[in-house]
């Protein structure tokens, strides 16, 4: 039997529970820092690298130091055709950050993500759990103001 086959029943069960557990930790801590993932590794018996691998696969499980509000601009084709780049440009102008970066006051993180399923409202973005569709570069400042 291979080493993988010798895995304890509990660590296999924990693997199945990993995504819900990551989501729960994210809700509790706001992000998935090394401390959070290390304690999750201790709790589940899964290696830290495996948990990190799973978390980094998903755009909605931020492992980097994330800002209080995470802006996710859809990077897929329909949004791109409807000037998602203009939206990103406008966010850049307002906050002074590029996709992948967090503002110095840690209020906002900006990310460009895969399709968020709002093609009918392209270009679209999400701030935390709220969807903003039919965006124009001019609307960005007003939307961001509501988070200040």
């Amino acid at each position: 039997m291979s080493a993988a086959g010798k895995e304890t029943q509990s660590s296999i069960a924990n693997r199945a529970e990993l995504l819900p557990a990551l989501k729960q930790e994210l809700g509790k801590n706001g992000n998935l820092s090394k401390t959070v993932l290390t304690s999750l590794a201790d709790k589940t018996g899964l290696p830290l690298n495996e948990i990190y691998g799973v978390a980094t696969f998903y755009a909605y499980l931020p492992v980097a130091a994330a800002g209080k509000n995470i802006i996710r601009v859809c990077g897929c084709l329909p949004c791109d055709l409807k000037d998602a780049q203009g939206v990103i440009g406008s966010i850049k102008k307002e906050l002074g950050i590029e996709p992948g970066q967090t503002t110095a006051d840690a209020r906002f993180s900006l990310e460009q993500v895969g399709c968020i399923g709002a093609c009918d409202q392209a270009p679209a973005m999400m701030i935390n759990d709220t969807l903003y569709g039919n965006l124009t570069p001019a609307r960005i400042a007003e939307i961001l103001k509501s988070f200040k």
Partner: protein
Amino acid sequence: MGNMGRVKLNIDGTSVKVREGTTILEAAAVHGITIPTLCHIKDQLPTGACRVCVVEVEGSRTLMGACHTPVSQGMVVHTHSPKVVAARRVIVELMLTAHTGDCVNDTNAENCVLHNLASDYQVGAPRFNVRAPRFYPAEEANPYIVRDLSKCILCRKCIRACSDIAGKNILSIGYRGFRSKVVTGFDEALTAEACRDCGICIEHCPTGAMSAAPGFKARKVGIVR
């Protein structure tokens, strides 16, 4: 076991009889036909990540991965037909595109199975331009292992060897798409604390992305196929 559980098939014009559940790769090997592989580890569960083992199966819509396709009764397989060779050439070319190692000019190029395969299949310089090449600085945090992830083709052999053979589980795939990368811990350097001198990943790595540090010559890159 008599004829029970035996499967008869044809590989490259030769009639072959093997046990049910055998893969095309294993059946071919028994009869002296070599199908190239990069991600396959003998006697371990197949990964099917690299695709260089694809073969033509008559009646099948697509080419099949020989390392993970079990034989079936009456199957007719071509392991080196023009269609197969053309596909393999592009598969190797695509991997070379993301393989920013220096094996082209490197005197240690015999360590790079991908380089040898490219040479066997006369692939030449890749046609494709990667907008953001997968480049990572070589990492020498470990006294035993040098990691140069620019050479990595994401075949996952090191991960499987580490977890399924050595039972250590130090390596995983992190991120996704072009950013995919073999990670340790919280995507940290592979320190001696995390990984000692078992060297199993070095033996399994087909491209020299994991190699023995100078002064630690116990292990040779890519000797396990």
